[in-house]
Each structure stands twice: as C-alpha cells, then as structure tokens.
C-alpha cells in the first residue's frame, strides 16, 4: 500500500472537492439530459386541426369543442389528461394521466385528441 499512499499525497484537500464536484456535475447532466421520454408540451386537436398547444410547466384547463360537446383537457406540470368528454365509451378519459412524450388520448366520437410532445421519446405515438 506504499504506492497508493504515495499517490494520495499528490492530491490536496481541495482536489478531492473538485473531483466530487465534477462527478456530481456529470450525474446531474446525465439525469437532466437523458431522462428519456419526458414530455415538454401538449397538443390538443379538435376536428383534425390544432386547437391549442400548451407547455407542461403550469396547470391549465383547456375546453375543446366537438360535434358532441366540450372535451375538457387538464394539464399539470409534467402530465396531462382528458378530464371529461361527452363521448359514449369514455376511452380517452379512462386512459388517465399521460406522462410520456408521444402519448396520445383519442376521443374519437368528439373528434378531440390530446398528445404529449417531447424530444427523446421512445415512441412516435402511444395509445392504450
């Protein structure tokens, strides 16, 4: 262990801090840049046209009109859902919160869709 002791003598106290800071910076950058599929925005389409675009940074409600009535979209930081829809089977409402880039909720009878956008998504489109 004499060799490792000799090497340790080359590091001054602050050097350890700089090494630790560098590692923290890398891990932080990794988390920040590589969180795959995190959504950054939502697009609401009604009748095939873009009705509203929203970023997912603050809560918001969007009411999109369709042939059957109003579809209510609820947006929260990092996620979005169809809160209510006049359609008969409620598939898009029962999908719940969408949290990944590329996720889509389609309220076909009322012709409203909600889609999350974001880079690095694993899917072009995702629906259940």
């Amino acid at each position: 262990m004499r060799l490792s002791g000799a090497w340790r003598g080359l590091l001054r106290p602050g050097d350890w801090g700089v090494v630790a800071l560098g590692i923290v910076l890398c891990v932080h950058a990794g988390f920040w840049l590589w969180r795959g599929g995190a959504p950054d925005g939502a697009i609401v389409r009604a009748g095939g046209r873009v009705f509203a675009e929203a970023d997912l940074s603050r809560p918001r409600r969007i009411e999109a009109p369709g042939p059957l009535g109003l579809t209510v979209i609820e947006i929260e930081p990092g996620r979005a859902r169809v809160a209510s829809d006049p359609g008969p089977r409620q598939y898009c409402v029962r999908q719940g919160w969408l949290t990944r880039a590329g996720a889509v909720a389609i309220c076909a009878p009322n012709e409203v869709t909600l889609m999350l956008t974001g880079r690095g998504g694993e899917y072009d489109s995702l629906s259940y």
Partner: protein
Amino acid sequence: MTRSVIELIPDAEDRRVAHHTAAAILLTVAEAAIPLPLPGVKPGLANIVTLVVLARWGWREAAWVSLLRVLASSLLLGQFLAPGFFLSLAGALASLLMLAGAARLPGKWFGPVSHSILAAFAHIGAQVLLARLWLVPHDGVFYLVPLFGAAAVLFGLVNGLAAAALLRELRRLEAAEGAADRG
C-alpha cells in the same frame, strides 16, 4: 546594397518553451495512434506538460506551450485548419482561460489535479459549444455531454496526478542538485 541580417537570439525562456512544446507534441502524436471509442474523447496527455509548465513557470509560458502544441501537432497530423484543429484550439483557449483563474486558487488546497479537472471541463465546454454552433446544428450533441463530463473527470484526474508526480520528481531532482552544488 546593404545586406541586413536579422538574428533572433533565443533566450532561456524561448528554449524552455521549445523544450516543453516538443514534449507536448510528442504526447499528442503518440496519443493520435490510440483508437478511441467515441469521437472527441481523448486523454489529452499533452496537457500534463501544460500543467507542469504552469506550476513551474507560470501562465504565460503555459499558454505558449499549449497553443504552439495545438498548431504544430495539427500540422504533423494533417489536421491544420480542419474542423479538428478548430475544436482543439477552442478547447485549448478555454482551458487556458480557466487555468488563469484556477492558478489563483490557494495552492495549499488546490493542486495540479484541480487545475487539470477544471481545465478539462472548460475544454469540453468550449468544444461542445463550438460543435453545436458550427458542426452539428442540432441539440443532439448535448446528449454526449454527460459522457464528455465523465471523461473530463477521469482524464483530468489522471493527467493531474501525472503532473503532480512529475512536479514532485522535479523538486526532488533540484533539491539533489542543489545539495550536490553546495557539497
């Protein structure tokens, strides 16, 4: 017609810069022979020389050695004025700026290892920025930042340790020489 002769007489500093630059060029050329898994990730062994010169002779000489090394090794490797040259130059300039600040840190606490890692981060920062602005007009380059950062910590640490070991060895040699002169 009078013949005019311009004679450049190198002083001790010039000779030192030439010496150290030669060592740095050698390391760069040797390193170019090592296959690397990812473009842009290199140990940067030549920076060991820059760090030693910084510690012993100051920032000005370190800047000379670093920039002459970038120029001369790019000529040797056929990279002069190619993208790789500008990336090296940007990295070297950013590192030198960082070293100008890092050299002012209290020496009791921060040694060559700190200088090395800080300069390595400045190096990749400048290179990624230049690559994004000029070579890859897409945010995709930033995906590699964590890898480059990890390389900066690892190679910064290794180069810094090598520089610190060399400096210790040089001090030991000088002490021995001084003792021999006195005795």
